[in-house]
């Protein structure tokens, strides 16, 4: 395999593991709330990173990623609610269903590009949204579907470790994928699909694979999230959720591996903390975003890339 032996993979893996070890100590020092906020940040890191795989690397600017998280969450939630299925079965089932729906959607939008793809995927998400709202009897609609918690408690610490582990695994997996031949094909497709085909790349297959993988990851994260947040509402499919993911990734650095990692957590934390400023909170947030983007168009990754390179240049 090219992937596991490549220096990019090794470096990222080391960095991720070091960060993870440091993060192990957060629950010891943080309040219930702090631990909760960081836990939710992990959730967004996973969503952002998996969306980045699709949009940033493969050029499939999908606006349905939040929908796959919701599919994961609702699948497990509904299985539990109506049939008493355990979360340990429900969550994988949700991931599989999200992956399967991602496969279907990926096939459907195969020939679409840019804004066409964006709008079609978003139409898909809205369709799921309206369905979850309108089929009230089955999904409990806006009232919210009550879901059992994963560990029988809502103390954030066990969820914190669960999400931390999940994040590490997902990030390592994505890194390996990006450094593998498929990773090259993904970026090739984003740049010039016709050229990729002419070289012998089965672009359909690559796109559909990426769509399925990234949707399944979103579904998985959504499933676990659902069993932590315990009340699911169609708000999960509100466009603002998707916008949040987009902003996280672009602020971090679109199409760069580190981007969603350094983008998602700060955005989530800032947004959560600003919530106590009421109606002005989003104006603050918007102003921060705009200033940051004016400052570095490549996002945070653009700012830290030189440091990152220097770090390894010295150690090499």
């Amino acid at each position, binding site marked *: 395999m090219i992937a596991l032996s490549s220096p990019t993979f090794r470096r990222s893996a080391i960095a991720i593991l070091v960060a993870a070890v440091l993060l192990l100590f957060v629950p010891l020092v943080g309040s219930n709330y*702090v631990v909760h906020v960081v836990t*939710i940040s992990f959730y967004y890191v996973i969503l952002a990173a998996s969306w980045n795989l699709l949009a940033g690397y493969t050029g499939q600017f999908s606006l349905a990623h939040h929908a796959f998280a919701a599919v994961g969450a609702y699948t497990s939630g509904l299985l539990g609610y109506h049939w008493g299925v355990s979360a340990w079965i429900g969550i994988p089932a949700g991931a599989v269903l999200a992956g399967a729906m991602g496969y279907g959607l990926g096939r459907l939008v195969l020939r679409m590009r840019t804004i066409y793809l964006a709008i079609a995927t978003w139409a898909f998400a809205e369709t799921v949204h309206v369905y979850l709202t309108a089929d009230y009897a089955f999904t409990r*609609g806006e*009232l919210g579907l009550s879901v059992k918690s994963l560990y029988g408690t809502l103390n954030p610490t066990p969820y914190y470790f669960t999400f931390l582990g999940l994040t590490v695994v997902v990030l390592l997996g994505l890194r390996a994928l990006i450094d593998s031949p498929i990773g090259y094909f993904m970026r090739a497709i984003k740049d010039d699909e016709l050229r990729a085909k002419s070289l012998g790349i089965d672009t359909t297959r690559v796109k559909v694979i990426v769509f399925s993988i990234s949707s399944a990851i979103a579904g998985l994260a959504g499933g676990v999230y659902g069993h932590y947040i315990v009340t699911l509402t169609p*708000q999960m499919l509100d466009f603002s959720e998707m916008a949040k993911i987009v902003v996280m990734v672009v602020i971090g650095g679109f199409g760069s591996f580190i981007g969603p990692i350094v983008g998602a957590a700060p955005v989530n934390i800032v947004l959560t903390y600003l*919530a106590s400023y009421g109606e002005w909170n989003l104006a603050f947030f918007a102003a921060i975003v705009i200033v940051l983007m004016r400052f570095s168009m490549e996002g945070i990754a653009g700012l830290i890339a030189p440091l990152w390179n220097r770090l390894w240049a010295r150690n090499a």
Partner: protein
Amino acid sequence: DIGIGLDIPLSAPGDAAGGQLIRRGAEIGIDTVNAAGGVLGKKLKLFVTDSQSTPQMGVANYRRLVSEDKVVAVTGMFHSSVAIGINEVAKEMGVPTLAVQASASDITAKHYDIAFRTHAVDPVRVAAWMEFIKKKGFKKVSILAETTDYGIGLTDETIAQNKSGNFGIEIQKITFDNKATDFSAQLLQVKAFKPDLVLNIAVGTPVDLIMDQATTVGLLPATPMLISYDAPTRPQYWQLHAKNGDGIYFIAYYSPKAPLSDIGKTFAATYKEKYKEDPVYGALNGYGAIMIIADGLKAAGSADPKALIKALETGTFKSWPDAPVTFPRADGVYWHNWVPPVLIMQYTKPMQDWKEADVVVAYSKK
């Protein structure tokens, strides 16, 4: 200081208008209590958070209010899903919640120790308008309801009570997406049905859009329309409906024609002075929630949440109406739930002050 959390919608997708009214009331409540020397020798402090109507935000806010701001109670809750979500966490963290304007049964029907509410639940409101329908002798009713817990919940309850109470009303049920803006198609169907009454079960903008568009297709003013909550008492009502606002029926919980308590009167005066308009239900209830919590703290004699819960369950409190407030461990949805009186009112002249509106039905739960 003793902290009290106020979790309300202040930005989209939440109903920020609803949240704002609650906040105004609560702030005046805090000032009133502090001006009178506070409780337990300490001042009260309000911590406001924005739930944006998502349980996710609401729950995060609750955790923060409890673990960082160390509040003794969290009130405000306007959207049912937020209240339900918060209660799940509150059950473990132990700080009581007092929902102000969230109507879903689940909030209290789960019988959690920490869950309290001061709002009319669906069955009460439906009972009020069934009485109204019977009184008016209406036979055909069109329900226009949004496809949310709110709209569907009330619709189903209406259909159920129609059956169980043998009212024998013919009901046309049309549901719509609460993001819709154009109701022409639905209203044409309503018109074709020729109802005696149109039940407008929407929240926020659709309420007004339905009224306007119903006027265009000629339903209003000929066919009576009942609005399912107190939207017409909000200050902007006549600005929006200068031409078609007359004759509308609406649900309300407060009318000056019904008596206010003494603290309610002080509040109404303060509010009027501060905001140059009369307080409406949301503000009154936001105020009431603070007063109830303050009295609860006094009764408990400590700022311990457990003691507060005990005090709330056992004590009798004062809020804005001239009626005692209690939170008994009652059956079903009435657990920890105080229901304000439900009024059905009607504007009888254009630009009428809502305080002058006719009280058509005054319903109290037996």
